[in-house]
């Protein structure tokens, strides 16, 4: 790891100022993506700004029909939260299956979505539940947040503050995990929300996307029959040593059906 200057600000304003003032500053959240990257010397930030000293960024609350998760909330807290388990069990389930126990103790929702790994789990929930991402500057609709491979709508000096998930009528998440890394090869969130049916896919493309044909089919008829024979094409899907585009396309259908069964 190359050396850097370390900061632990106690307020969001101070963090934003440090980030803007640094030559090449990086936010440090749970460190479970950033530190392995630095260990491999794949990046050389001048400054690391650790958000763990900012109390308001951590925690889960319920407000206005939504569950609000602070950016610095670790996956394990989301998985164990009585509020999340009661209001959006699919989200608790998703969080409970990220990586392993120790990854869940440190990795955070803010870090996960800011990183926008094409194979991360949370993007399926942010897009699939129609969440709103609150930053230190504005609010971004979940569907507009992910822009491509490791690319988000965040500006250079913008910080994720929280993610607000409207409580759906029903929702289910299913993933086909890579047996070594536990990241989804394909993960699908299926939800019946106030704004309509949403089906979001992660792991298969450059970033999470909606499967509109499945949404239309389920809007017309919320049942397993509606998507029994529906298939997604392989065009534009990821292809790597773990799975071909054709295999991922097949998994989208299978995971959507499992997610629907979980949603009930």
């Amino acid at each position, binding site marked *: 790891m190359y050396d850097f200057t370390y900061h632990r600000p106690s307020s969001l304003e101070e963090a934003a100022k440090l980030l803007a003032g640094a030559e090449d500053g990086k936010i*440090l959240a749970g460190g479970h993506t950033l530190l392995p990257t630095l260990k491999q010397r794949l990046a050389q930030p001048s400054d690391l700004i650790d958000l763990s000293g900012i109390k308001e960024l951590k925690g889960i609350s319920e407000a206005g029909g939504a569950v609000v998760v602070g950016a610095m909330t670790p996956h394990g807290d989301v998985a164990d939260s009585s509020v999340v388990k009661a209001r959006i069990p699919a989200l608790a389930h998703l969080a409970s299956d990220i990586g392993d*126990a120790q990854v869940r*103790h440190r990795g955070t929702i803010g870090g996960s979505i800011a990183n926008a790994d094409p194979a991360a789990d949370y993007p399926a929930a942010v897009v699939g539940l129609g969440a709103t991402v609150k930053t230190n500057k504005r609010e971004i609709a979940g569907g507009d947040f992910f822009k491509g491979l490791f690319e988000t709508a965040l500006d250079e000096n913008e910080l994720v503050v929280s993610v607000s998930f409207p409580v759906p009528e029903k929702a289910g998440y299913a993933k086909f995990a890579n047996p070594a890394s536990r990241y989804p090869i394909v993960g699908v969130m299926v939800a019946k929300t106030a704004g309509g049916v949403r089906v979001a896919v992660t792991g298969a493309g450059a970033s999470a996307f909606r499967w509109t044909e499945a949404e239309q089919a389920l809007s017309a008829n919320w049942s397993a029959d509606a998507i029994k024979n529906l298939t997604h094409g392989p065009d534009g899907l990821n292809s790597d040593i773990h799975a071909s585009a054709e295999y991922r396309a097949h998994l989208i259908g299978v995971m959507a059906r499992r997610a629907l069964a979980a949603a009930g």
Partner: protein
Amino acid sequence: MLTVSMTVNGKQVSKEVEPRTLLVQFLREHLSLTGTHVGCDTSQCGACVVHVDGTSVKSCTMLAAQADGATVTTIEGLAQDGELHPMQAAFKEHHGLQCGFCTPGMVMSAVDLLKHNPDPSDREIREWLQGNICRCTGYHNIVKAIQAAAQSMRG
């Protein structure tokens, strides 16, 4: 350089370190607590698991600076008054190790599991150990040891 202070196995320590110092380096190289191992470069193997403020974490994926002010327990801190912790005793009794490289992390992770779930099923134990890789035992005796420890700790 920056100064980090923490309580490690009940002792208050304070050292000057480079900001890039990992917690595992701090423990092994600055405090000579070499019971905590490093088995990979990818945060996957769990040989480095320690407890920070009572929760199991991978000390290879945390800066020493991030543990400033925290309470840390390593494998060296488990035995009390020369008496093995029930988890250590169970690993010994049930042959839960061969080369022993993964063992400190396994034991620390398993102790944390029992805090969350004092009566885990075999399946729950195996799921919890997803972040702890053993290249020798085939896991059977590790699971057996954790079951035995759970039983003895429930009393």
